[in-house]
């Protein structure tokens, strides 16, 4: 796989609840895509005051066949950069760098898996589901959001996997509650050997805890503010335990965004725990 920069024509933009689904023509990115990868999109056009790219998980890529060379991603309007993006129309061109990051690890053979998505976090789980099913892994989805309009991919998930449990904080769709309320049952239902998750950090931590209780692996995709997305700036770091048991601040754009939940020191995000490699050298600075 190699990372490339592509001028991608927008094939279509469609609404889905509060989200905007983009399909863009980016054959070289589509070719290298594996589930969990993301793209970094330039925003604001020429003379924009916004110099940094915005990251979006790839929600699908079609290297061959119908719609060959397309890449999908899903945008939630958040601030000025995403607002600019949601105002783009089919036929316009956006500047993409990708595929970026380390994708979701796939089991070596068939293995039952639960896929947990919070809000637009379900987007990268759709292509992951396809990959798992292709391997013969039974899967189930758990999708949650604050409210019904912020759910993403429920129908596609149903078409793909059959079993989808939905929760919303306000009960406007599915069960009222959090994804973590229904996750244990889902794990037990299919005897899951792995949980995949993408969504807000507290959700990822909670998913990790549940997986741990079930003594199974949780591969979770995080979202940290990124300046470069390609590994050169060191802004996107998280405290993660390495093979040697020592914790380092590692770049979520290249070593992540997918991490083993058990290795992320969630409660130390935003802090410098004393046992962090190199924390001792920070004293007096």
């Amino acid at each position: 796989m190699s990372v490339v920069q592509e001028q991608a024509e927008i094939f279509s933009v469609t609404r889905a609840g509060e989200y905007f689904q983009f399909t863009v023509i980016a054959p070289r990115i589509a070719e290298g895509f594996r589930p969990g990868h993301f793209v970094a999109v330039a925003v604001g056009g020429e003379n924009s005051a916004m110099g940094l790219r915005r990251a979006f998980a790839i929600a699908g890529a079609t290297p061959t066949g119908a719609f060959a060379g397309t890449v999908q991603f899903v945008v939630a309007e958040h601030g000025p950069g995403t607002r600019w993006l949601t105002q783009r129309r089919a036929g316009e061109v956006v500047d993409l760098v990708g595929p970026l990051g380390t994708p979701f690890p796939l089991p070596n053979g068939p293995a039952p898996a639960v896929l947990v998505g919070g809000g637009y976090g379900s987007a990268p789980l759709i292509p992951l589901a396809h990959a798992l099913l292709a391997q013969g892994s039974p899967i189930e989805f758990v999708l949650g959001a604050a409210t019904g309009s912020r759910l993403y991919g429920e129908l596609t998930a149903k078409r793909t996997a059959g079993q989808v449990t939905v929760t919303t904080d306000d009960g406007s769709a599915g069960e009222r509650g959090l994804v973590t309320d229904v996750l244990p049952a889902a794990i037990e239902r299919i005897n899951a050997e792995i949980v995949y998750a993408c969504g807000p950090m507290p959700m990822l931590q909670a998913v990790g805890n549940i997986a741990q209780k079930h003594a199974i692996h949780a591969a979770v995709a995080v979202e940290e503010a990124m300046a470069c997305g390609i590994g050169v700036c060191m802004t996107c770091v998280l405290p993660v335990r390495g093979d040697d048991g020592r914790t380092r601040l590692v770049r979520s754009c290249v070593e992540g965004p997918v991490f083993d939940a058990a290795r992320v020191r969630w409660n130390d995000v935003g802090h410098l725990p004393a046992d962090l490699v190199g924390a001792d050298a920070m004293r007096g600075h």
Partner: protein
Amino acid sequence: MDMSTRLGTLTLPNPVLTASGCAAAGRELHQFFDVAELGAVVTKSIMTRPRSGRPTPRMAETPSGMINSIGLQGPGINSFVENDLAWLAEHGARTVVSIAGGHTDEFVELARRLSGHPAVSMLEVNISCPNVESRGQVFACDAIASSRVIGAVRRAADPAQPVFAKLSPDVTDITHIARACADAGADGFSLINTLLGMVIDTDTMAPALGGVTGGLSGPAIRPVAVRCVWQVRQALPHLPILGMGGIRSGLDALQFVLAGASAVSVGTAVFGDPSAPVRVLAELEQALAERGFASLQDAVGFGHLTAPQRVGRLQPKAAGAAAS
């Protein structure tokens, strides 16, 4: 078009470099272009020991810029030499190693460690870091502390490796600091490091960065950077300058060259466009040709010349354009 340039005793095939901390050690950018095509790769400032850097969040976007507070996260000099420097040498990249320290001895240790290393073309001394011996005041904000570090590094370093002092714009008179560094033996200057800035997150109503304040970079600061290059060139015309601060295009780079920079570093622009350094190089070459320059050297400091002095430095337009 002869794009070669000199930074002290070092000759580079072209004047476009990366900026320290904006290109790691070249490896990631090599996915987008051959790092050997650059004038040189300037590596992230390295210190003696591994450093965790500051807590996150480490960056916030600002109008035409960003602030960062990385806190010099790095693997320490040993790992750097074994891994990064080795990789750069293997890939034929000329390398400017940026060094940082908490006290003069740390800078000296780093200079010694890099002395004689064939992959090191030059040292850039990042003195915009806190001096642990002086209540954390930044070296570059004090002429005496700056000259002490630069003098010590110059004495400890390989004589074949030029030593450039990287100065901070956050001072009352940058020429005063530059002069002190020159007197201490600096072979040239890297201008400028980031400006101290701050963003308050209006949602959390607290500082947006874990480190509270951070360094402002990007096109927003370009006018300040050009001014610093201009002033130092005027004060110390005999010393070469590596200019940086908000360079995103060949015309941006040309401003620095006209102000007196012999070479430029492309920093923050890389985050928006990973191949910015090679694009800037191509654009700069074309801009020089269009303006009738026969070589990059003819353009260095051209903005300072009086009208009579300008005569003869430019070729007739057509010839210049043809030469591109």
